[in-house]
């Protein structure tokens, strides 16, 4: 039994354990401890084998990069789980199931990230999205949650159906379901020559594309995300925004870093269009948004637009300097920076939210936060600066990597869009910061009581965001050694 699966086994078994435990005796504290410890152990296990990991079967492909990214995913889950306890405690629903769903979603995400076959990919995807649906509607009394759940459920079902159709068509024409086969084998190349003639083949690719675009909420399949963010409970939103998206994107990174996509010009054009549109529209949508959650939703559209830029930079027509790994590193770094930052934001929001007022998270509620709750506000401010990509934050390092890679691949038009859209973005990020330093208003209130775990998480976040922002050197070198290899 290969030890690369150790984290998976830990996570899924702990999910089962929780299920059984709950059946015997409900105990919130133990449950949360089980899940956290499980994730912690899994993380350690994952990190230990980052350097060495390499496993390839029909279904699963794990190399160092994948291992690293899965470590990232586990880390996100772990941090989130640390804050689940205080939040769930204030809820008067049965709590334990949430942990189970949470762990299952994490598991699904990791499968997606490591999948090398449509079957495994599909399984992971469904595990992820199906366990998220109940998490969205977990709060019984919340009408918005229900609406969000229904929307997410129907749309993701539609999306998976479309993806499946795409897969089916591909399978119909190529007779294979394995990515590596589709990407490298001779079959694909003759398909590539054939694809211009073959409409159905195009349709297949487009279907896959639309499905992915939906999962990553890229324009034009982005409409759902704001509603879901607004309606869903904060932890679920955080999971959705970071873990599920990250997982799919990790897969994209891998698929694109291997394989030769420049032989599908149409495909690249569509992707660039999507990227540009996402950057612009996302930021334009967020421009005057007063609901913080919707604002974050829209900004995440834009950020995944930026990430696509890194993807596109992987296979340029002509690069200034031919470095294969640069774009991959860029995407990884940006993903890391963005997910970490966003998670941090959500954690603080969870601390801010007492469960009644968590329904409408308007900017007004941040008014004067800086003067009332400096520690939280400073961290939040730093996080937003990181989202805006101001230097000395991890967000900037990511953006710098991105720009560097994109310039190297001479994606000038997309870079122009990047400049414009990040200006738009800056506008609303600054508005948030401004709101926090305003003279305190009436609605502003203190954080709910800070328990050790949340303090730890907050300081950790700040540390990561600023620390890596100021000294990205070691991590950069490490990432290079992983991906460059």
């Amino acid at each position, binding site marked *: 039994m290969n030890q690369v699966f150790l984290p998976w086994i830990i996570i899924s078994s702990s999910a089962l354990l929780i299920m059984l435990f709950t059946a015997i005796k409900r105990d919130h504290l133990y449950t949360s401890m089980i899940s956290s410890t499980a994730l912690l152990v899994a993380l350690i296990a994952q990190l230990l084998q980052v350097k060495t990991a390499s496993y390839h079967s029909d279904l699963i492909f794990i190399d160092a990069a994948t291992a690293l990214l899965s470590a990232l995913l586990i880390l996100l889950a772990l941090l989130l789980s640390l804050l689940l306890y205080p939040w769930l405690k204030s809820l008067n629903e049965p709590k334990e199931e949430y942990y189970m769903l949470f762990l299952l979603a994490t598991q699904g995400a990791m499968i997606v990230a490591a999948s090398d076959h449509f079957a495994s990919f599909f399984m992971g995807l469904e595990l992820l999205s199906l366990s998220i649906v109940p998490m969205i509607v977990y709060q019984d009394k919340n009408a918005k949650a*229900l*609406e969000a759940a229904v929307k997410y459920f129907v749309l993701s079902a539609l999306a998976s159906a479309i993806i499946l159709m795409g897969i089916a068509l591909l399978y119909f024409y190529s007779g294979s379901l394995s990515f590596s086969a589709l990407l490298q084998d001779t079959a694909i190349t003759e398909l590539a020559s054939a694809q211009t003639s073959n409409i159905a083949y195009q349709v297949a690719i487009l279907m896959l594309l639309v499905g992915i675009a939906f999962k990553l909420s890229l324009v034009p399949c982005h409409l759902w995300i704001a509603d879901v963010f607004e*309606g869903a409970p904060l932890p679920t939103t955080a999971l959705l925004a970071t873990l599920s998206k990250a997982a799919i994107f990790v897969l994209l990174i891998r698929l694109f870093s291997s394989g030769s996509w420049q032989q599908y010009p149409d495909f690249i054009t569509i992707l660039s269009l999507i990227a540009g549109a996402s950057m612009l529209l996302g930021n334009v949508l967020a421009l005057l948004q007063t609901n913080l959650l919707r604002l974050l939703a829209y900004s995440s559209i834009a950020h995944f637009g930026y990430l696509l830029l890194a993807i596109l930079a992987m296979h340029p027509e002509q690069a200034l300097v031919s470095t294969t790994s640069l774009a991959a590193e860029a995407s990884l770094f940006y993903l890391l920076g963005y997910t970490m930052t966003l998670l941090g934001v959500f954690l603080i929001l969870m601390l801010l939210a007492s469960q009644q007022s968590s329904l409408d998270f308007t900017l007004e509620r941040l008014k004067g936060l800086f003067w009332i709750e400096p520690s939280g506000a400073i961290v939040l401010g730093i996080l937003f600066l990181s989202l805006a990509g101001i230097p000395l934050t991890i967000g900037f390092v990511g953006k710098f990597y991105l720009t560097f890679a994109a310039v190297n691949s001479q994606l000038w038009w997309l870079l122009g869009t990047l400049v414009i859209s990040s200006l738009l973005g800056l506008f609303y990020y600054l508005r948030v910061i401004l709101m926090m330093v305003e003279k305190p208003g009436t609605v502003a209130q203190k954080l709910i009581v800070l328990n050790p775990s949340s303090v730890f998480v907050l300081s950790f976040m700040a540390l990561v965001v600023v620390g890596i922002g100021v000294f990205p050197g070691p991590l950069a070198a490490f990432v290079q050694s992983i991906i460059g290899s």
Partner: protein
Amino acid sequence: MISAEQLLFFSLTLFVIGVFGLLVRRNLLFMLISIEIMLNAVAVLFVAAGSYHHNSDGQIMYLLILTLAASEVAVGLGLVIQMYRRTLSLDVDQLSKMHE
């Protein structure tokens, strides 16, 4: 003997029907059904492709899709009940409190 192209055509038609069903019906229940139709269309195509290529991946996928369909229905019906409990109707158009 039915040719693969015919099956492809059939399943695509089925899929399109499902899509249209999803788009035109307001009732959540019927939307679920349309989703089922789509999934089945895909399933048919997989089976057809499997037999066309003489390998078993198609059948395996078919099984996976079946399980997926089942679990989706489970979750979906849960939602349906929830919704009916709250709004005494299954009209999804009423679920549009959140916009801009």
